[in-house]
């Protein structure tokens, strides 16, 4: 196994899987993932292990939505309007059974709650900068929403997920777009931050 297949077990693959697990996805569910960045893309790979009928990727960045599509998700572009409305349109007016929030800001958190079907589950692993935020409490209440959020204890997921990577049921290295020497790290940070050069995951070699 190469470093590029293994390294994400320590953080973003475990986090993505943890999010999918927290979503309580059951076979046949419709699942939407907010955020097609590294964690969101690995949450999409993980979600597929639980047998969803349809998987949707919500983001604004075209090249990231394209990779999400290659990984088996149906792209939902934020540029085309309210994601909750789009997702209802794609699911017969019902909304996804499970929404995985992989961004970590008030807007996608709110949109996740607005998107999920009544009785559905929102699982959030986005790292919030805000110490507190507002959310549609009334809608969440009347939807009988289940909400799970938190920081993944990656240590508990590394060993169980390792065999899934080994046999190719999870392919975390698919998200790698750049590999550069440590000396080029400032450039790596810059392109990842600005979403330049179609950057998704930047690897560094000492």
């Amino acid at each position, binding site marked *: 196994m190469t470093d590029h297949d293994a390294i994400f077990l320590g*953080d973003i693959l475990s986090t993505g899987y943890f999010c999918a697990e927290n979503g309580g996805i059951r076979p046949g569910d419709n699942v939407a993932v907010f955020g097609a960045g590294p964690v969101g893309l690995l949450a999409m790979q993980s979600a597929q292990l639980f047998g969803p009928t349809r998987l949707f990727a919500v983001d604004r960045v075209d090249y990231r939505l394209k990779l999400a599509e290659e990984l088996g998700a149906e792209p939902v572009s934020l540029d085309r309007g309210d994601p909750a409305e789009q997702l209802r349109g794609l699911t017969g007016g019902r909304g996804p059974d499970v929404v995985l929030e992989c961004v970590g800001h008030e807007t996608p958190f709110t949109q996740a709650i607005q998107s999920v079907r009544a009785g559905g589950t929102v699982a959030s692993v986005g*790292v919030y900068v805000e110490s507190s935020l507002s959310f549609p409490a009334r809608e969440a209440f009347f939807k009988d929403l289940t909400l799970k959020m*938190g*920081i993944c*204890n*990656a240590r508990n997921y590394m*060993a169980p997920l390792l065999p899934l990577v080994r046999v190719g049921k999870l392919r975390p290295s698919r998200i790698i777009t750049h590999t550069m020497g440590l000396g080029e790290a400032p450039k790596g940070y810059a392109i990842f931050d600005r979403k330049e050069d179609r950057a998704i995951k930047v*690897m*560094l070699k000492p």
Partner: protein
Amino acid sequence: MKAITFHGVGDVRVQDVAEPKVVDPTDVVLKITTSAVCGSDLHQYHGRGGALVQTGAVMGHEFMGTVEDLGPGVKQVRRGDRVIVPFSVSAVTASGASAGSPPSARRPAAPCSAGDSATSGAAARPSGSACPSPITSASACRWR
């Protein structure tokens, strides 16, 4: 050794920093073979992150490598083992819980950002560093 260090919003540089060494019995020094830039590193990159945004703070928390040196309290890995390192730290030795324990039996994970040279040529995790808790040897997932 070389490390990526923080110097201001959007300003990271590759600099020489002190070689890591074993300080506490449960410390491990790794030779980093691969590291990565994580989305949560961007918080630090944008100047959000308390102690982590001081000038010279070492960036990064996604890395793996081989064990170069270890303290006498480390039982789960040996010199030369290739290991993956979790970004988070859980106090397994403090609570007595193990990897298979239910969440209620373990303390919440604490983010372990940067403290020591995570994206550099080597990493150690001395408990007195910027890392909130030391990564114990049990935190490393040994594999072949």
